């Protein structure tokens, strides 16, 4: 391998001596200069102070559930969420930077409660929660990253608070570069400790307090395949332990609604592969991602995402994207149960049912300068549809609670 590498490098040098194409000399010399020790600080990459502030607002609204799918009564409004995200990032020293994320969201609307058979013999019907849940969630996280010549290491911690839910998260991750940063190995470990105190617990016969713990890890490898191409493969594993059911949902067993009861352990594995390629002449970049997922509840899922980043003029970028998702059902899932199960696991949650989903998005982004600061503004729209008919394998009984939504988002980034 070393001999081939030497031969290749000598050939590359010979090619190089024929002269670089016009207009690239300035860039080539400057990049080469920045590679010299002490001439580029990591802060330089983001701006002269290296500080960045981002804000994003998104309004997520679920489609109404049609009267053909809901009972009792007719069409019902579903969930709406207003999300606010703030991100701040800056260097503390030349080798250490801090990232702060704060989020605040307001959620309201009705959610699926349990599924009942259709008296007229058609597809099952969804019973929605009567009360409109009005919840606020605040979360914050802090991450400190140490930068080295050949990699980086980061420590992070966060907390999330809702009226009925409290979670603490933490993680450690790092990156190591090889082959002049042509190859990057990344890995990390994380944990989460959650506590749920369901509202109106006693009234609905729920436990007043339940816990859940999560441990996860990932290992990733990314490789530069050429001047304009890079690929990455990441293996993720997550283990959940504790109360994994949804305290606000029921399942109908022999005509009687029982609390949603899922196993108290779950192992999940996913393999994510990502591809990025830049088309110089088209002034565009292609993103293509595929994820394979499997867990020990019997669910396997595939996700495909493609996005096209098209640069128009100097400061405008248009980004259409498309996502396809398909999942199989959990072993213990059923819209409703004609008899009890031996393992006593029951759930009619559409999230554990077999289905597929398609979403398309369009986003526009523009950059400009005000008060000699760099700004980026973006606005995006997404429409998501799910259904049994979108799944990769035929679905005979689709869960009536399957949801569609659309989302409008707008964001602003400031660098200085």
């Amino acid at each position: 391998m070393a001999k081939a590498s030497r031969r290749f490098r000598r050939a590359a040098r010979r090619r190089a001596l024929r002269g670089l194409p016009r207009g690239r000399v300035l860039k080539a010399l400057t990049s080469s200069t920045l590679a010299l020790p002490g001439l580029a600080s990591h802060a330089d990459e983001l701006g002269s102070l290296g500080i960045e502030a981002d804000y994003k607002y998104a309004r997520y609204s679920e489609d109404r559930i049609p009267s053909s799918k809901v009972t009792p009564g007719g069409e019902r409004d579903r969930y709406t969420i207003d999300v606010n995200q703030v991100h701040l990032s800056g260097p503390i020293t030349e080798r250490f930077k801090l990232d702060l994320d704060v989020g605040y969201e307001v959620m309201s609307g009705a959610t699926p409660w349990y599924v009942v058979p259709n008296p007229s013999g058609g597809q099952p019907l969804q019973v929605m929660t009567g009360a409109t849940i009005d919840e606020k969630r605040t979360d914050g996280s802090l991450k400190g990253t140490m930068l080295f010549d050949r990699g980086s290491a980061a420590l992070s911690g966060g907390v999330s608070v809702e009226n009925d839910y409290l979670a603490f998260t933490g993680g450690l991750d790092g990156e190591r570069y090889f082959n002049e940063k042509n190859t990057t190995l990344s890995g990390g470990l994380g944990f989460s400790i959650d506590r749920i105190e369901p509202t109106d617990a006693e009234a609905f016969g729920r436990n007043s307090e339940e816990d859940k713990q999560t441990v996860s890890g990932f290992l990733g490898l990314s490789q530069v395949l050429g001047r304009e191409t890079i690929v990455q493969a990441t293996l993720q594993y997550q283990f959940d332990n504790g109360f994994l059911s949804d305290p606000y949902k029921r399942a109908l067993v022999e005509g009687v609604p029982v609390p949603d009861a899922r196993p108290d352990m779950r192992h999940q594995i996913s393999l994510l592969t990502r591809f990025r390629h830049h088309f110089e002449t088209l002034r565009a970049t292609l993103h293509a991602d595929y994820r394979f997922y499997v867990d020990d509840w019997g669910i396997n899922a595939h996700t495909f995402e493609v996005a096209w980043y098209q640069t128009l003029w100097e400061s405008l970028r248009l980004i259409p994207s498309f996502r396809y998702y398909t999942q199989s059902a959990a072993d213990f899932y059923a819209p409703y149960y004609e008899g009890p199960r031996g393992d006593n696991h029951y759930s009619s949650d559409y999230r554990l049912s077999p289905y597929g989903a398609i979403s398309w998005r369009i986003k526009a982004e523009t950059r400009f300068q005000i008060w000699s600061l760099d700004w980026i503004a973006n606005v995006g729209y997404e429409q998501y549809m799910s259904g049994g008919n979108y799944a990769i394998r035929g679905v005979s009984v689709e869960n009536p609670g399957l949801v569609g939504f659309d989302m409008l988002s707008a964001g602003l980034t400031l660098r200085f």
Partner: protein
Amino acid sequence: MTRLLAFAALCAVAAASSGCTAVRPWERDALARRDMAWDPDPLEAALHSHIYFSKEASLAGSGAGGGGCGCN
């Protein structure tokens, strides 16, 4: 499944043969573009990750770190 294995194999081969296709530091202008990043808009990636995590059964996101919310 075979498609997935092929992709993984491609990545492994690419990594192993990296000596043949090394891109030098001063040739990285295209790779350094913001739209070539894994997540050009990290807030959007986090938002999507959160939404898909709460709508679907599978893992979203590309790192470690728990869900931290009651939405699933």
